């Protein structure tokens, strides 16, 4: 019940395309859903996060869509650039459980010039 399932494992798009990464969860106690970006040899960096009381959130070129009834959420990267090539992780946590993050398995995104 603690798992967060992420798909696809990898994604290749052309510059300007819109990579879409999907995540699904089971634990209905989760109330915070962040996305992290990780470059090789670096720690994960917070991109954007959402709570279940909203269905969409945009920050710059990054958009989270959230479907509470389906227990799914996704990340869209608008107008993708080669510099967006990285591994992206979705995660979920519950304030009632002390905010430990449960991560998805990651999606390696390659944006071709």
């Amino acid at each position, binding site marked *: 019940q603690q798992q967060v399932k*992420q798909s696809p494992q990898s994604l290749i798009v052309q510059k300007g395309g819109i990579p879409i990464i999907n995540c699904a969860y089971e634990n209905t106690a989760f109330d*915070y859903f*962040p996305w*992290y970006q990780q470059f090789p*040899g*670096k*720690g*994960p*960096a*917070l991109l954007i*996060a959402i709570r279940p009381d909203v269905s969409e959130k945009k920050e710059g070129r990054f958009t989270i869509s959230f479907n509470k009834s389906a227990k799914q959420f996704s990340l869209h990267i608008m107008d993708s650039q080669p510099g967006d090539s990285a591994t992206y*992780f979705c*995660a979920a*946590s519950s*304030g009632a*459980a*002390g*905010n*430990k*993050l*449960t*991560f*998805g*398995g*990651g999606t390696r995104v390659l944006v071709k010039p």
Partner: protein
Amino acid sequence: DAGVTQSPTHLIKTRGQQVTLRCSPKSGHDTVSWYQQALGQGPQFIFQYYEEEERQRGNFPDRFSGHQYPNYSSELNVNALLLGDSALYLCASSWDRTTDTQYFGPGTRLTVL
């Protein structure tokens, strides 16, 4: 304002040895969490420290232990190292009272031979 810092950057140990990894949280952050990230996988929660006490623990054996100091810095200790302990060890800090956003350090790459 310094972010989360970790030391050392890289470490090579042999099976059976013990290792200590160190983390200094982001300024003003009083909660430190440790994660293990195996190659090609998402980070896995090890434990969390707040007010110098272990507040939560993930599914890791007792060989993994930690400590938090009054200045909020933290250590992760791993005893009797196994080959499977080879991973990137990540420290994340957060300000417990107002946000569950966790900021990650660059990690310590541990290789067990």
